[in-house]
């Protein structure tokens, strides 16, 4: 039961302005406003804001919808992209539709340097795997790809060969990272699945493999010699783990099976 003598809170004033206050409380708020000119002025100002917003943008609904935004046009375009785009399309949906959820998870995690770093890597992953036409900046075939990215990032970079996983290097791009330039390599499978490897300077102690997953994306990251690496892809932990192992071995030039199994142990210990 609502007591009409209860003082009106600021929250209630908003609820009142937005028309969500139960009718039996509205009257009490109106009485309150007639006795509290400051609150009445605020309410009036909020209403004026809403009206100004509606006056400024409300008319857009009456404008004719441009051709490019008709469903007919959009569905036609989609069909012409063919089936190859199907996998990318799913990825694109994840970018658009699920990003909110993911961002929620990400922001819930303690920020910190490493958290920020992996969030950047996942952000880049999400952003660029959705690109149908321009997923990369420089193609894999171009000789200057690695020298250029190495020079900008400040360490000798290798783009690991992931052919064993049916992944082909598309190319790479340079990105601004939290601690300076970052490199992003993108790989694609025959079915259009995309994985990325992200690298940038990271002032954090050496760390073993860590697995993070956010709904539909997973990432394995590690820190070695002042640089952080993040391998991102579809949320498939065993697969990402093996890819990260192979990448790590090639990047750090450690091909001994010992390292691999050590990494295996680390990931199974820390990655759940």
């Amino acid at each position, binding site marked *: 039961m609502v007591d009409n003598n209860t003082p009106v809170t600021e929250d209630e004033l908003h609820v009142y302005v937005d028309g969500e206050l139960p009718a039996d409380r509205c009257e009490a708020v109106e009485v309150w406003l007639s006795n509290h000119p400051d609150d009445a002025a605020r309410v009036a100002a909020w209403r004026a804001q809403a009206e100004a917003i509606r006056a400024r943008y409300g008319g857009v609904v009456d404008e004719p919808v441009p051709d490019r935004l008709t469903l007919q046009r959009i569905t036609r375009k989609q069909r012409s992209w063919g089936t190859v785009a199907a996998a990318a399309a799913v990825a694109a949906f994840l970018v658009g539709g699920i990003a909110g*959820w993911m961002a929620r998870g990400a922001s819930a995690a303690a920020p910190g340097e490493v958290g920020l770093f992996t969030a950047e890597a996942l952000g880049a992953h999400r952003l660029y795997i959705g690109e149908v036409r321009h997923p990369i900046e420089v193609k894999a075939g171009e000789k200057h790809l690695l020298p250029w990215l190495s020079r900008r990032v400040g360490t000798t970079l290798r783009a690991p060969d992931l052919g064993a996983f049916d992944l082909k290097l598309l190319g790479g791009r340079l990105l601004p990272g939290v601690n300076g330039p970052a490199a992003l390599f993108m790989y694609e499978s025959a079915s259009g699945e995309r994985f990325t490897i992200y690298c940038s300077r990271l002032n954090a102690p050496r760390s073993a493999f860590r697995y993070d997953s956010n709904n539909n994306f997973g990432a394995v990251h590690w820190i070695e010699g002042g640089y952080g690496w993040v391998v991102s892809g579809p949320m498939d932990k065993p697969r990402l783990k093996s890819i990260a192992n192979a990448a790590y071995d090639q990047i750090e030039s450690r091909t001994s099976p010992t390292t691999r199994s050590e990494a295996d142990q680390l990931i199974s210990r820390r990655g759940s």
Partner: protein
Amino acid sequence: MSTFHQDIEATIPALRRYARALTRDAEIADDLVQDALVRALRSEHLFHGGDVRSWLYTIMTNLNRNRLRSLARRPVMTPIDDNDAPDAAGPEAGGRDIERALALLVDEQRTALLLVVLEGLTYREVAEVQGVPIGTVMSRLARARVQIKAYLDGERPALRRIK
């Protein structure tokens, strides 16, 4: 045409309005709408019922956030008109002021305010679109309103004329 498509089609004008207010740029706004529609259509099979309209608002909100994030990586630009001569009075002057006031808001606050006052979503719907509790939506609204008021009161005295 399926109901799903009809529902989407019927929402396009409102999506354009929301996008225009979010971006305050007609071209960017329509790009955003196009992106949202493409994504919605491609993922029809992933839509498991519910309110198509809310779902589209969610996609659009997320796309816009991604867009702002990529902008945020660039140096911060200050609006050049800060030091410009004041706008001429007229019907448009008020519109531009509310536009600038909106531009100053943090994205989450602007989104919450626009969904409520422009798109007429309930607090509960906005909470779902933004993926936060209702209390968070309310505090975003409150902060948005305080900031807009401060901007309009303080820096734009001419604005008091708007009703």
